[in-house]
């Protein structure tokens, strides 16, 4: 048995991992989630604002990380829509334009009474700007120095939502979903911390340990990886039960089933690997 395990082809591990992720997905297995304090801080930051508040939603990610971040972006969008907030979309990533389109589709298809045909009065798409943190520095001090037009080329002075907006310090909340650089850390470094802009972020698991030290003094709250997304979805459903009927509002929750099984498998494999190592050492082969 030990010899078989010692010479096990690594592709067996891939195959077992495939089954561990695929089976809960096909079965639709979900587990109950309890929102953590950190996630509740994000929920409260959006929910405690008066209806129709102004929110900047910076979606700084691409399709490569959409699997982890799309549930967060969609949950932010739905939560803002339920509160009828005015949303300013922008991105520092070129493929982020398509991610914004996904959120706008949610507004138009799921909340038509508030957002359909209300471009410019309830939401605006500022699109992409190159320049990384340089763009953030400009938009927090003078929005129109960086953005003179929206994504369609319409002058910002001709759009009701942006006509009187001098800079991002005037908005009520900044919500950022980020997959790396430029993203959450840059928004904190150049936006929320020096100018005290209330900010919440949703980020990948890789970024989460980097962002944790900023909470709560320099960052209001954070959704960390798919677990954070699932807890946020649960928090929204707890508060707005009508959303429970919408399967698209449970993207993160559905993906927590495979997470659990895959994590159990990984832990088992780590334990097994160590057992093999110690057995080999006892036999003097290691």
């Amino acid at each position, binding site marked *: 048995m030990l010899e078989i395990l010692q010479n096990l082809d690594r592709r067996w591990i891939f195959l077992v991992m495939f089954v561990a*992720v695929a089976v809960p*997905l096909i079965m639709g297995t979900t587990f109950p989630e309890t929102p953590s304090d950190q996630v509740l801080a994000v929920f409260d930051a959006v929910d405690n604002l008066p209806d129709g508040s102004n929110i900047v939603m910076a979606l700084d990610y691409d399709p490569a990380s959409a699997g982890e971040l799309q549930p967060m972006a969609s949950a932010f969008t739905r939560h803002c829509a339920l509160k009828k907030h005015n949303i300013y979309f922008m991105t520092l990533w*070129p493929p982020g334009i398509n991610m914004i389109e996904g959120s706008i589709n949610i507004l138009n298809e799921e909340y038509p009474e508030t957002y359909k045909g209300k471009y410019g009065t309830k939401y605006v798409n500022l699109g992409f700007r190159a320049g990384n943190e340089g763009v953030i520095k400009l938009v927090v001090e003078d929005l129109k120095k960086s953005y003179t037009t929206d994504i369609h080329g319409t002058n910002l002075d001709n759009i009701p939502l942006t006509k009187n907006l001098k800079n991002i310090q005037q908005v009520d909340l900044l919500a950022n979903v980020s997959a790396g650089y430029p993203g959450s850390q840059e928004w904190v470094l150049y936006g929320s911390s020096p100018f005290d802009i209330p900010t919440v972020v949703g980020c990948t*698991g890789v970024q989460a340990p980097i962002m944790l030290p900023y909470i709560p003094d320099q960052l209001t709250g954070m959704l960390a990886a798919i677990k954070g997304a699932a807890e946020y979805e649960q928090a929204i459903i707890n508060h707005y039960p009508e959303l429970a009927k919408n399967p698209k509002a449970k993207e993160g929750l559905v993906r927590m089933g495979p997470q659990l099984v895959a994590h159990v498998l990984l832990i088992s494999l780590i334990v097994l690997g160590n057992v093999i190592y110690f057995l080999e050492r006892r036999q003097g082969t290691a």
Partner: protein
Amino acid sequence: MKQSTIIWTLLMVFGGLGLISVQLFRGKGEVYVREVPVEAKSSSKTSPEQTYRWSTYQEVSAKEKDDPGISFSYSRTLGLWVSAFCTLAIFSFLYGDNPLYKFTESVFVGVSAAYAMVVGFWTEIVTNLYAKLLPGMARMSFFPDMESDVQSDLLYLIPLVLSVLLLWRLAPKGNWIARWPLAFFIGATAGIRLISYLETDFIGQLQSTIMPFIVFTADGSLLWIKSLRNTVVIVGVTSCMVYFFFSVEHEGIVKYISRLGIWFLMITFGASFAYTVMGRIALLSARLDFLFNDWLGI
């Protein structure tokens, strides 16, 4: 039987089951759309009100394909199949390197670079440079909405000149000229970052670490969870800093504190790695979700 043969056989079985499911759940692997008419009105001081009409297409489920106004979308169906093919081609690397994987990887790199270039051109070169330097021509060509009294902003000649100098690198002679704009960018970026890091990461983080070991409520009772959390933060920061303090020999009490710092660092790296694993599994489950639901309809 060789292990690789068994794995290959199992993959073939999975693939066969997938194809059978496509046949069983007919209508999957196909995309249907509903036409949504859009109407917009525009007016300006110089021209009368104009009405523009066009259509957008909203994706609907295959169950609604027989409803009025629903049509089969060739382009989106093709996109779905191309997407599924690319996903499987990339996954094939897990079995071993192969030409299909290399082809898909090259397509991905090429498409990403081209997409970033096109977006950069239309959002920066056209919107931020051309429209600022030549507003009259910009109004006639791409931005009819632009005010007629906008004047050229000659300050934008500076980034234009810097960009040309930067591209000089490609010239056969005098490519040293590209170092000047590069020096400007490096200097400016370093300056911007230095101030922010000092303010947020240095001063801000110091402020966040200055906290009481023991926390009491207004009525004098102990908040032991908050006290424990503060103690862990203070002890963790201090011991990790001692570990990186190399001017003093790590002996005696310093040795034990720095060893505690190593423990904190190891726990941090472990948590960081675990978060990364969670992220990767989330990406895998998203791709499998696409294959099973959107493509195969299982």
